Structure formats: structure tokens, C-alpha cells
């Protein structure tokens, strides 16, 4: 089922060299657990975001495997030690194979 998933990232535009930057990520997604039943008593098939990867200038800085116990609208935060300016790329993988992406540039000075 197509899901209107919207990735959102909270990140400053600039950081100091050596700064520990908090990266806040959120994607709107129901995370259908596969445990629920519909009005007719039929099981609702599982459909979750099962993976998340963050890269910076092409190198992986963080990765997550996610399961149905994770809340709807998966929210994940982590830290990155900033050494240079560049580009964050974020990718969330849906059970149906769709990959949702977002990009954030940051200047380190």
C-alpha cells in the first residue's frame, strides 16, 4: 500500500569544527505492526520502515534496523562529530521496497 511518508530532519545549517552535532530525524509513517485486525476481523498486513541509513559525504555515519515495536512516525536521533562541510543523505526503507530520501547540507567553519 502506498504510504504518504514525509521525512523530516532537524539540523543547523552551520557547525563548528569538532562540534558534536545532534541529528534529529522523523518520518511520518504508520508503522503497521502486523498485529492488528481490521473491522472485518482480517489481519492487517505488516508494513513498516525497516531500515534507516545516514551518510555524510558518501560515508555511512549511522544505520538502524527497525521492527514493529518502534512507534509510528519513527523518530531517531544520534550524534555526529563534525570535521568538514558537506552533505548529509538520509534514506528510510519501507517493507514494500520504497526508499524515502532527504538531504541536508551543512557548513563547518
Amino acid at each position, binding site marked *: 500500500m502506498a504510504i504518504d511518508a514525509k521525512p523530516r530532519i532537524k539540523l543547523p545549517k552551520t557547525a563548528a569544527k569538532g562540534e*558534536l552535532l545532534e541529528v534529529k530525524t522523523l518520518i511520518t509513517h504508520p508503522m503497521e*505492526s502486523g*498485529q492488528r485486525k481490521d473491522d472485518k476481523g482480517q489481519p492487517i498486513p505488516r508494513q513498516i520502515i525497516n531500515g534507516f541509513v545516514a551518510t*555524510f559525504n558518501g*560515508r*555511512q*555515519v*549511522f*544505520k*538502524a*534496523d*527497525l*521492527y*514493529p*515495536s*518502534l*512507534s*509510528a512516525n*519513527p*523518530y*531517531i*536521533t*544520534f*550524534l*555526529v*562529530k563534525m570535521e568538514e562541510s558537506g552533505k548529509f543523505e538520509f534514506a528510510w526503507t519501507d517493507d514494500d521496497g520504497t526508499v524515502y530520501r532527504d538531504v541536508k547540507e551543512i557548513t563547518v567553519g
Partner: protein
Amino acid sequence: AAAGTVFLPPPAHATVEAATKFMASLIGNRTPVAGRVKLTMPEIAENGNTVPVAVTVDSPMTDADHVKAIHIMADGNPAPEVASFHLSPANGRAEVTTRMRMSTTQNVWAVAEMKDGSVFIDKTEVKVTIGGCGG
């Protein structure tokens, strides 16, 4: 006080055994010990659909000594798996947060795998209550 709550039949719960089995699938026969990893969660969940989880691991996060992974599991949900986070020295400090579902009062486990193969664990009980009283 409580009262007027909608009562749902309790879902099938995972068990300590299931959580232990899931942990073994990740760390093999290594034995996790207490220390270095700290799991912070609310004492009482205010919304079982979205309970904040914060994990920090005491680590210099250098090439030689860093956290490779933090695994979250729970022993009272329909399945024990919650999330695995893969870290590297690029993180600077091992600190992650997320939000999880809890169908009932249970223990949440945070397991940290270090570069040298050692494994640390922290557990915390989160209460899911009917609620509704006050001073």
C-alpha cells in the same frame, strides 16, 4: 481515578526467553555485563504508543575503542525486537534516542556491543498504567 477505561484483551506477549533468544541471535554466546551502557526511559509511560527511549554508552568512540551497535529489545511486547543502531567513531559520542510501543508494563533492555567484542547491558522497567487520579 481510573474508571471508564476501555479494556482490551491482552495481546500475546513476548517473554524473557524470547528477548534472550533475540539477544543471542545478535551477540552469540557472549555474556553481557552491567555497566557503560545507560538506558533512560520514563518510570511510567504516558502514552503506550510512543514511549521515549534514550541510550548512552560510555565510550571514547575512537577507532580503537568504540561502540559498534546498540540493540533495544523488550520482554513484554508481542515480539521482543525494537531496534538496532549501528555506530562508528564518526558519531563522536554514543548517544541515541527513539520512541517505542509498549503494550503492557515490562522491562526494556539496551545491549551495547563494543569494538573489542565486549557486550554491556542495562534494563529498565516501564510501567503502563490505567491512570487517572491526582492531587
